[in-house]
């Protein structure tokens, strides 16, 4: 858990980072620098999208897997890192 805290602090301290959320394997936010409702909303939607992206990657090549997802939009950029235990 300390490792998660350190990583969270490190990322959050980077200039331009608005928010950082750590999700567990079930897609539930376990740590966040954003308020609860925002965290839950982002976690829910992005967890599902990440699952879909993973499915797409596996569909194209069953031997391949998703490692990172980045969504650039007009207003900001969302980055999803998929780890073994956390995302």
């Amino acid at each position: 858990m300390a490792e998660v805290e350190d990583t969270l602090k490190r990322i959050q301290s980077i200039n331009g980072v608005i928010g950082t959320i750590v999700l567990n394997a079930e897609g539930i936010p376990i740590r966040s620098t954003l308020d609860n409702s925002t965290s839950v909303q982002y976690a829910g939607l992005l967890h599902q999208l990440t699952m879909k992206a993973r499915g797409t990657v596996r569909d194209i090549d069953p031997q391949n897997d998703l490692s990172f997802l980045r969504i650039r939009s007009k207003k900001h950029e969302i980055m999803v890192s998929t780890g073994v235990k956390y995302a």
Partner: protein
Amino acid sequence: MLQNEAEKTIKRIQAQKGVEGVIVVNAEGIPIESNLDHQRTLHYTYNFQQLLARTQKVMKDLDPQNEATLLDVQTEKNNILVSTDKDYFMIAIKNPREGP
């Protein structure tokens, strides 16, 4: 004039070292340009169109005023970039080992 510019740009990207493929899809979801074989082109087009649509829905859910412009799918083997503007979108498949 514009078509020529677009074609030149696409060819330039396709010629880049490390770029495995580039597919341009029109508003109807039809790939109008690709340097991959037909089957792969259709497979990628269908799959990533779905993912892009889903992504846009997520972005709109989070903020109705916002929308995605680029989707960067990094996998263990390669990198798939889906760039979108208005109705068209472009898929670029990059191999990380080679190229810039």
